């Protein structure tokens, strides 16, 4: 673990930025059609329970990382293996986000640039950031958060001014409740909300442990609200049929903005949001992998690992899938079931039960 401290407000911003980052851009819960905003809200509420599981684990071991207390809970051998698996999971997640980011960026802005170059440029900045440590990540987050908020207000203002919002697109609501719940538990709960499992690697840096519960709940609720709001906006501007066909609904929404004949084609705003989001998510995942590995393998200077781990993420992002549709296929069918479900929900629950039993014995 690094010798550093972050404040609760920094954690709040980190959590919001991390969850919003790329989920703002991709269609979320679109299986449920025009009720997808409801899917997001329900998933947010469910993920608050998840957050409390992680928090309970943190309260048992307030000064240890997730990869440290697995050892204490299930023994040295098994614990280390589990910690190692978690590090791999973080690396894989980082690589997935990087791949998705690269494909998104190239598909609409730089069709002739090779994917590897775009990802390599990004990973260089990520390595530099991870090298500087969690405090710098947190402070960078604060600055980027301000930029994101200003962008959001600016965008909403423009959309409202250009008169694109058509509320009738949202009706009728609550069509099929089973479809909604199905989407929640097969997709939306894992991405983006379940991804807060990485914050078990960041909670120990908090300087005020008491306020953490409130902060987390506030961050998740705000994220849920913001995502639901964006989805509502997208649906009301574009309508469900158009969204289902578009890769990036927010981009299509932005492109339909036209104010006064000169404010048009504001793609740069989308690129900005895309790069900031992608950067932030990859950075947090890579940081958690680096810090976990450094404590698992007892490396004195975690920053030494930033470069090799960053490169690993880059090459992993190139080799995890031979093309983008395969990547999406894995992301929708295999990854949630065999990786996200166990790592985000089942294992933490099991760990919590073991922690509960162990600590009761002591008393």
């Amino acid at each position, binding site marked *: 673990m690094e010798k550093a401290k972050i*404040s609760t*407000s*920094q954690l709040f911003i980190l959590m919001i930025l991390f969850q919003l980052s790329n989920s703002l851009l991709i269609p979320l819960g679109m299986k449920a059609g025009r009720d997808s905003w409801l899917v997001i809200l329900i998933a947010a509420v469910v993920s608050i329970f998840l957050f409390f599981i992680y928090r309970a684990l943190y309260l048992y071991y307030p000064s240890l990382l997730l990869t440290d207390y697995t050892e204490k809970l299930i023994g040295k051998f098994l614990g280390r293996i589990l910690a190692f698996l978690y590090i791999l999971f973080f690396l894989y997640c980082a690589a997935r986000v990087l791949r998705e980011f690269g494909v998104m*960026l190239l598909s609409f*802005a*730089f069709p002739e*640039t090779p994917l590897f170059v*775009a990802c390599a*440029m*990004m990973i260089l*900045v990520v390595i*530099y*950031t991870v090298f*500087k440590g969690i405090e*710098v990540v*947190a*402070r*960078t*987050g*604060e*600055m*980027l958060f*301000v930029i994101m908020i200003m962008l959001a207000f600016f965008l909403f203002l423009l959309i409202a001014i250009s008169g694109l919002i058509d509320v009738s697109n949202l009706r009728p609501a609550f069509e099929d409740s089973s479809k909604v719940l199905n989407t929640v538990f097969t997709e939306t709960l894992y991405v983006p909300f379940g991804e807060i499992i990485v914050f078990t690697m960041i909670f120990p840096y908090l300087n005020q442990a008491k306020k953490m519960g409130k902060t987390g709940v506030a961050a998740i609720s705000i994220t849920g609200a913001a995502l639901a709001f964006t989805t509502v906006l997208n649906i009301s501007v574009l309508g469900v049929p158009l969204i289902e066909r578009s890769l990036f609904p927010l981009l299509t929404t932005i492109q339909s903005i036209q104010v006064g*004949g*000169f404010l*048009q*084609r*504001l*793609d*740069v705003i989308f*690129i*900005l949001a895309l*790069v*900031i989001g992608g*950067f932030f998510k990859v950075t947090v995942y890579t940081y958690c992998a680096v810090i976990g590995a450094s404590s698992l393998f007892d490396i004195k200077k975690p920053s030494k690992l930033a470069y090799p781990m960053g490169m690993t993420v880059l090459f992993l992002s190139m080799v995890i899938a031979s093309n983008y549709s395969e990547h999406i296929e894995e992301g929708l069918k295999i990854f949630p079931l065999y990786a996200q479900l166990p790592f985000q929900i089942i294992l933490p629950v099991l760990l919590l039960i073991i922690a509960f039993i162990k600590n009761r014995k002591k008393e």
Partner: protein
Amino acid sequence: MSYRKFLKKMKPKEQRKDLEKVEQKSIGTSITENLNIIKQKTGNSPDIIIRMLTFSHDPEVSTAIVHVDGLVDNPTINEFLVQSMEDSVQEKLEEKDLFKVFSEKVVAVSSLETLKDWDSLFLALLSGDTVILADGKNEALIASTRGGERRLVEQSDSEITLRGSKEGFTESINTNTALVRRIIKNPNLWVESMNLGKQTNTDLSIMYINGIVDTDIVKEVRQRLARVNLDAILDSGYIEQVIEDESSGLFPTITHTERPDAVAGNLLEGRVAIFVSGTPHVLIVPAVMIQFFQTPEDYYVRFPISTLIRMLRVFMFLISLIGPAFYVAVTTFHQEMIPTDLLVIIASQTESVPFPAIVEALIMEVTFEILREAGLRMPNKISATISIVGALVIGQGVIQAGIVSPAMVIVVATTAIASLATPNYDIAISARLLRFAFMLSAAIAGFYGIILGLIMLIVHLASLRSFGIPYLTPLAPLEWKSLKDTIIRGPIWSFNERPESLHPQNPVRQGKNQKPLPPLKRRMVRADTKEGDKNES
């Protein structure tokens, strides 16, 4: 080593004896010997003036005064020192201890002290004090007679304001500290002085307000200064470069000013000022990024105006950073973003230009940098020629020759003016250098490159610290209370606390109800309210 020892042994014995004499630590009793040592140590320099004085009552006892020509105030020596020495000796004929007589009677000079060792004697002599030696005494009397030709207190050239004090610092450290003392008349304004530079023996003072400043910051400043072991300190820039946190980065983590009111304002916020003799630039630590966009004048004009001006400055800084890069990115990668009419204009202009946008931009930027550097160091008469050559020959000619498009010239000119609008030269110059990096990244990857560059810049800035304070405070880490004096400048009556990040000992700045309260009768009031009786004009 052995070679040197060998040489030492080879020296004739007499000469070695001489050397040993000079190496003596303390002053001897014989005046002629003492004067010889002074002459020898200073290499018989003609500007070391030695005057022998004998007094009529006892011609046996001789005294001498020694001073350096030009460093001393001649009227003080002639009228006050020599004259009153003679007078006092006349008065007290019976007293044998001359120094006692002098120190009791010679009050005309501001300070007198006795010294016994050569090192401090020479330091005092070369600082402009007058040394009084007497036969039979193994000590010297030092009279403070510092003076000589100096620049007067003038308006500073580098920080010009329309409103506020016109005084600027000078090269004299005593004048400078006095200028600040004149603003803050408070015994808690503490000054610590020291002497640094092995060869130059430069005077240096640190100034802070006891009771406001965080003692840890003062301790840190002292520690960092204590390890300075430079040969020479010719400007505060020398000190800045050996005590700053990040010496290889592009961004300054110590700010400097030529204005006493700026120093006073910073001291009152809990910062520490470092004065260096021989330069009008006073260092202020710790410095945060946002300070480089602020000027003292911001606090003298009304707050909505200075808020807008500060926003303008940050905007100008951004333009000077990514202006040309933005143009390169748009014309190279994102043409669809330009409204069609404008695109047609730009396309028709660039049609005849043989280079891609990045080459055009580099040509113009480098030309501009050359013009600027040439104009900066030139005498005024020649710099007029440079502006004519720059404007007419290069600006006009380059377009007519079809080497660079007019749109590019506009972009570069705007950027140039924007970078001049940044009030602090140190931060403007970082933007000037980074601009080229941004131009290249825009040429490689368009907006993606620019945004990645900006993120990298933010990460770098977030990783900087100045004397323990994160460089981006109060934006990151966020401090709500300090936000009102950042890019926005809140009203003076709302500045109730000093900046939190500096951990001031006394965080309360002023009374809570400083908001002006115009009398009730000026407002719109109902007719039956008594106080509103005189509402009509």
